[in-house]
């Protein structure tokens, strides 16, 4: 707690006027950051007239843009979130489920009706841990360099490798 109030340059009493605890403070940051990321991605891929691959491309670009724009906040949420312990679990599930819901909006359009209902959550979960380790490496260009691969991993299960290759070159 001493480190937090010192780096924020606020008195301890002032801190507790806003937050009940360190954990409460972290959750405020986590909720704000994840809601903003979800809103950015949703807006980017929600425009009219975009087909499924284009929505995915735009969504991934928006997500990486959010992560790049405030790397400290990205690290706090993606790296430190799972380190909080059981208290973060519902938020983590909600985060994965929300992004999976955006990906699921392409269902049917992509001709993937035979796939299990949970594939989108599984795909998004894999992307989360790729980003986790990219942020852990602390290489500034690492996140942006993942764009093409994240698009591919998000599309291939639904439209196949050939169509994904065509979409990536679009």
């Amino acid at each position: 707690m001493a480190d937090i109030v010192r780096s924020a340059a606020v008195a301890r009493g002032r801190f507790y006027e806003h937050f009940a605890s360190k954990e409460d403070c972290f959750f405020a940051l986590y909720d704000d950051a994840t809601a903003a990321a979800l809103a950015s991605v949703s807006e980017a891929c929600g425009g009219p007239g975009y087909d499924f691959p284009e929505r995915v491309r735009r969504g991934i670009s928006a997500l990486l843009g959010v992560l790049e724009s405030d790397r400290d906040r990205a690290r706090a949420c993606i790296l430190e979130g799972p380190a909080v312990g059981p208290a973060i679990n519902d938020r983590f599930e909600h985060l994965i489920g929300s992004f999976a819901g955006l990906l699921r909006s392409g269902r049917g359009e992509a001709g993937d009706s035979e796939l299990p209902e949970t594939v989108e959550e599984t795909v998004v979960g894999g992307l989360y841990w790729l980003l986790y380790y990219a942020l852990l490496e602390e290489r500034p260009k690492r996140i942006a360099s993942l764009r093409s691969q994240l698009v591919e991993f998000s599309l291939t299960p639904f439209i196949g490798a050939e169509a994904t290759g065509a979409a990536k070159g679009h």
Partner: protein
Amino acid sequence: MSALRTYLEEVREGGYEDKHEPLFVAAWEHLEAAYLDRIFAAIATDGEWRDRFRAGARETVLLVEAHRPEARFLTAEALLVGPVGRARQRALGDRLIALVDSAREELEEPDLIPRITAGWIVGVFFDRIYRRCINDSEPELTRQLPELMFLGVSAYLGTRAGMEELSSPL
């Protein structure tokens, strides 16, 4: 008393502290070695990559379901430890990535599929195991295995080969 039980009893009251690192490392090394022994035994066949991958994936999900505290330690509780836990997870992940990436040795054009594909597949498996470990209401991994196999196989061998995994028996 097992190394894991000793560690868990030590951190139960006040959580992890630096003084617990030797206990964490002892428990990690014991469980990691046991897991890798089982995996290497499972994949020790002359079969193709796909058969080895299926055998390793099957062994992993069966171990997680049969040994939940140990799986929770390796996936979720290691993240609570901070850099030491992350480094251990990263090293184990790299070994699993190398096993998955060996798929490229059987492809006519191995360079068309980057190594990061294996990182994504390992991330997909890790995410499902992690979420199963932090939330008992998540689907049993044995039910998720066809979907996980679909994603892994289709990434290397194409969608048609991946779809076959959706109807393969455990």
